[in-house]
């Protein structure tokens, strides 16, 4: 390997570049080819699969996963890994419900409260990682545990809906603000579900931030080589903190979308969010053969898994095979990214 990297100086640029570009293109577009094959395959077997209504329902189903996956991607870019986002999203569902049902808050105060909650958790992660120097994975995994437990305490483990009996014996009389529910159930122009709009906006904003701004370049520099970034004058600590604030805030947004769709504070609403989002972010490494975290790939990864599961469900694959399918896709994508790419 050292030999090839040392000697590649003398590569006649044209041929070398074209050859690698060819195989890169094949690997990078593999997931799109699979997606196309899948659409054709499922579409032939079950024409309803290709309908606009079905496409919208799949996108709506994956929108929260995709939003969370972009948050994980930003933390991966700084060399971290936010494993608390699943619990942040789940707890955000409870915070939003509690604010409306128990505190009688309208949408205008509920949403800021939930965002504040997500950002505070991001700060907690950053503090653990930067001040106390706990490794990223351990710190965020611990916070994940903490929040999973914490969200049960105010309601003594009950789900939140109008009429909830609080631990002090009184009944909560507030209800979900209809304007809040519109975030999860409304449609833009009668077609695009609002969560899908949120997903698109988040994806575009973060794609521009990470790939086309100097902040993004510094985020990647921090993750790629923190020493080099610091010696080039980059504020690596603040950049890491920023990444965790962004992922905390995005997890809160995901929680808002879930709460607004479900319409109650379900204690088990966030169960599979974390692993689905992690899978999407990692599948994203293979998209376009970037071999590194990237926002576009994470979103494509989430959508890919969404269509796959939807198609299988339409073909009457039993629901309990879903996790197996997701796992298989993840293993395949990682093998494609790391294994075959290196051998070429």
């Amino acid at each position, binding site marked *: 390997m050292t030999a090839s990297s040392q000697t590649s100086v003398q590569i006649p640029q044209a041929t070398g570049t074209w050859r690698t570009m060819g195989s890169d293109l094949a690997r990078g577009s593999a997931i799109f080819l699979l997606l196309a094959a899948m659409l054709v395959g499922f579409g032939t077997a079950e024409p309803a699969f290709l309908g606009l209504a079905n496409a919208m329902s799949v996108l709506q189903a994956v929108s929260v996963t995709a939003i969370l996956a972009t948050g994980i991607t930003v933390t991966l870019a700084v060399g971290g890994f936010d494993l608390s986002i699943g619990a942040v999203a789940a707890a955000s569902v409870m915070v939003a419900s509690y604010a409306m049902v128990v505190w009688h808050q309208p949408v205008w105060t509920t949403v800021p409260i939930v965002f504040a909650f997500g950002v505070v958790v991001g700060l907690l992660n950053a503090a653990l990682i930067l001040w106390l120097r706990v490794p990223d994975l351990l710190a965020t995994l611990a916070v994940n545990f903490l929040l999973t437990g914490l969200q049960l305490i105010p309601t003594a483990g009950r789900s939140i809906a109008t009429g909830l009996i609080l631990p002090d014996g009184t009944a909560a009389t507030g209800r979900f603000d209809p304007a809040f529910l519109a975030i999860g159930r409304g449609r833009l122009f009668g077609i695009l579900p609002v969560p899908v709009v949120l997903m698109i906006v988040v994806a575009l904003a973060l794609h521009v931030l990470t790939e086309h701004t100097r902040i993004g370049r510094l985020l990647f520099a921090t993750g790629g080589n923190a020493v080099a970034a610091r010696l080039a*004058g980059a504020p690596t600590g603040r950049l890491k903190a920023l990444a965790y604030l962004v992922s905390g805030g995005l997890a809160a947004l995901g929680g808002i979308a879930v709460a607004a769709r479900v319409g109650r504070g379900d204690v088990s609403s966030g169960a599979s969010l974390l692993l689905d989002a992690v899978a999407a972010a990692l599948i994203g490494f293979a998209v376009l053969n970037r071999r590194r975290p990237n926002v576009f790939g994470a979103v494509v990864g989430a959508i890919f898994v969404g269509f796959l599961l939807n198609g299988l469900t339409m073909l009457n694959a039993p629901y309990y095979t879903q996790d197996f399918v997701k796992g298989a896709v993840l293993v395949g994508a990682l093998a494609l990214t790391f294994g075959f790419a290196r051998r070429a």
Partner: protein
Amino acid sequence: MLTDGVPDAAAREAALSERLSAAPLLTLAGVAKTFGATVALQGVDLRIAAGEILALMGANGAGKSTLVSILGGATRPDQGTMRLGGESFAPVTPADSRRAGIAIVHQATDRAGCPGLTVADALVLDRFADARFPLFLSRRSVRREAASVLRQAGFDLQLDLDFGDLKPAERQLLAIARAVSAQARLLVLDEPTASLSSHEAGRLFDIIEDLRGRGLAIVYISHRLGDLKRLADRVVVLRGGRVADAQAAPIDFERAVTAMIGRPLAAAHAEARAIAGDVVLDVAGLHLGGDAAPIDFQVRQGEVVALTGPLGVGKSRLLSTLFGVHAPAAGTMRLGGRSYWPRDPAGAIAAGVAMAAEDRHRTSFVPSDWPGGTVAGTVGLPHLGRWYPHGFLVGDRESKAAQDGIERLNIRASGPQARLDTLSGGNQQKTILARWQAEPMRLLLLDEPFQGVDVGARADIVAAIRADRGVATLIATSDPEEALEVADRIFVMDRAGLSPVTKAHHASLR
């Protein structure tokens, strides 16, 4: 082994030529290898006898690494034959090569053991993986084995130290001891002195000569001519994958270097210039902490000052303190006449100070397949805020700066967007210089800037540093040759602090 008297040397030479003509230990004939479109080796012939040191020279990318990797069994040649000890030798895996008696000690010796294990453990690491070795270990049995490994190697190491606490020199010795105890017949040493002080290097040379005396064949790879002059019995020069020169003693190194870089090398000693520029850096009573002595010195605009001295004496610490990585324990620093007290590297950069730290891969580069892993990205990293004040990376400011650097410093790259890992060590180092020269600065700090840089690229870098008359330059290097080549003034740093050395004096010291 040190007594290299004339009759002794002559006798050895006679014995050597006899053995070479009789039966060389290793013979390569017409070995060729291509990687894709890159020709790494084309028809290399080579022979090495037991009991000789063969110096393998070549610029970065000349094919040395490929040759070593073929000997080590990690790469298979496309053409050619190899014979080892009279038998055909065609290793398929590194294990084949090891079994046949070839041991390779790489430049990066951090892989000779693992932190957390003791030196004794690291010495017998190979045997832990050997199924014939007992499953259950005791401290005593491991120590006994380790001691016997050291006995075979003929030198001493402290067995109870943690591997992670070893200095590079000790790790190097440990790796050599492991190689020798593995019944090696041919030992390949790749840049063994790259991170050693001259004292440590001297000790290593004694050991290498001792191993030669015991009949080991040694292939010695180095960019340092001083090492090669001291050790080499013969020299083979690779250039563009071919043998460009082969000499037996007496070796004409000037001819070898010319063959290596394809042109004669300019005078190796920088002439001292009269520098009349203003004082840029003024350091007084600077304490780096611990029991180190206070440091006083000045660097003027347009001047190149080199700090030399043994490893671990605080050269890097001094440079990184000037760059705001560490806070000094006491003393004053003035930059351009004003008090200078950087809180962090960002503060130092804002004040007009730049540093290219030791070990460029660890301290200057992001991975090549990440954003910013190109020549342009490397040049631009510290300047993004200045070049893109609105935050969006639009326009070609960065590419232009990189293109300037490529032309000015003669960087061999396909362009500003070339991935950094497609560049040779020398061109990577030039890229770091281009980074800091892309914006005005007052003080340039270079820590071991010539590590893994071949002689030709080194001459380019020296010329570029000396030509920049607007900057004060401070260079830390443990190689006195390099200090002589680049500096107007030289300081030796040791436990007693800095002492100035005149160049004539320095030259006579060697």
